[in-house]
């Protein structure tokens, strides 16, 4: 009997883990966006003094991991597990950053949903009694992701207007069994939904049904009123996906008062990213930066974050397969 599970997909934590702090590192483009003042560190360029973009991403992730622990003066040795993920093959950024950190490490791949997934699992580890402190992190880099998923950047391919721009950024959160801060109260683990989108540039449209599915299940499982949260924020659907999700939500008779998307929030329209931001780093830095700041200031009391991930590979996309997608939700509350 799973006493902490309710409904189809949701867990309710008995002793909700506390988010002690977050630390965020972003690239120059994100550092010029509307949320620039909420990030802890803005890199001057996308290399950050390293020889390759991969090395820059690894360093960025390591910096955010160390930064989060430093912020609350917790020595790394006191952290029980590090949960991290990124977008590159074999999770190299997380693996290499974790090599420097030296903590027991669990690598996660949830594409752009990784941050929400790592927080959900980190909270389960703590509430389950397996850990007292967990580090949850995710990173992405625009240029490493272009090479991984699309084509060499030197080819200078044109992007369609519905394409999203992978965020260069890394974010880490320290979860703890005790302390002051917003608490992770519930988590809804998503299921894979695939409505048959085949255009790998149109991830917003591919992910929207999965995210809507998780949102609807979250509210049904918990029987919460649809205006319960001050902010319901999706991971990185971009303008196209956000529009689709709000349509589905409205048709499902959910009256969410403040629905937004990390990918829409992170860039200004003048920055010409087309449909907004994406990548693991997107929800990681918006959560670790803007949302946590607002929560610590008391401006936001209850937030639902739904990390959205598109779980295809470049090979399956070239073979004409559709884009299976997922959404994981976590609720952060001051209680």
């Amino acid at each position: 009997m799973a006493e902490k599970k309710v409904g189809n997909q949701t867990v309710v934590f008995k002793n909700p883990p506390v988010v002690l702090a977050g630390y965020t590192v972003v690239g120059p483009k994100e550092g010029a966006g509307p949320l620039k003042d909420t990030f802890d560190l803005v890199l001057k360029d996308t290399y950050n003094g390293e020889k390759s973009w991969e090395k820059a991403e690894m360093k960025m992730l390591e910096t955010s991991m160390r930064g989060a622990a430093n912020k609350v003066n917790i020595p790394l040795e006191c952290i029980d597990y590090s949960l991290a993920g990124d977008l590159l093959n074999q999770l190299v950024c997380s693996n290499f950053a974790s090599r420097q950190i030296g903590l027991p490490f669990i690598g996660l791949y949830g594409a752009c949903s990784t941050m929400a997934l790592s927080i959900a699992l980190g909270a389960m580890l703590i509430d389950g009694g397996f850990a007292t402190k967990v580090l949850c992190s995710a990173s992405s880099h625009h240029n490493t992701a272009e090479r991984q998923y699309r084509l060499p950047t030197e080819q200078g391919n044109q992007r369609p207007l519905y394409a999203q721009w992978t965020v260069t950024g890394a974010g880490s959160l320290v979860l703890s069994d005790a302390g002051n801060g917003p608490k992770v109260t519930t988590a809804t683990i998503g299921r894979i939904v695939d409505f048959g989108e085949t255009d790998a540039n149109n991830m917003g449209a591919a992910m929207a049904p999965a995210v809507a599915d998780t949102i609807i299940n979250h509210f049904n499982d918990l029987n919460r009123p649809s205006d319960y949260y001050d902010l319901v924020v999706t991971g990185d659907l971009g303008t196209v996906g956000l529009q689709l999700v709000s349509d589905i939500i409205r048709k499902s008779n959910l009256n969410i008062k403040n629905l937004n998307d990390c990918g829409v929030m992170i860039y200004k329209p003048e920055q010409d990213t087309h449909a907004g931001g994406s990548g693991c780093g997107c929800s990681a830095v918006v959560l670790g930066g803007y949302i946590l700041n607002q929560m610590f200031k008391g401006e936001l009391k209850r937030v639902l974050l739904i990390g959205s991930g598109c779980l295809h590979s470049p090979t399956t996309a070239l073979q004409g397969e559709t884009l299976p997608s997922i959404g994981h939700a976590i609720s952060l509350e001051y209680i």
Partner: protein
Amino acid sequence: MLNNVIPAFIVGGIICVIGQLFMDLTKANITPSHVLVAYVTSGVILGSLGLYKPLVDIGGAGATVPLSGFGYALAKGALEAAESSGLIGAFTGGIQATAMGIAAALFFGYLVALVFNPKG
């Protein structure tokens, strides 16, 4: 000089606009590589049917410099060599006629690869 430049600009410009429209109006799975191959191939087809020659007569470099012009040169060379030396010529003529362009691409590509490191 304007007598050459203006027709070249118009003919070359129209050829490029067609390529751009392919990129903008089709689904994103039509990539620049598809456009590249389609242009060379259509240059070969139009060239061998004699339909590309009028464009070259009007536009000059405006028609020979784009990728379709490369296809035209391939077809023209193959046809000419086939007339002079038969079937063997059909195979060798295209490359002979375009040897300068191919060798220059190889040479400068090699030079750039020696100097720069690809990073993306």
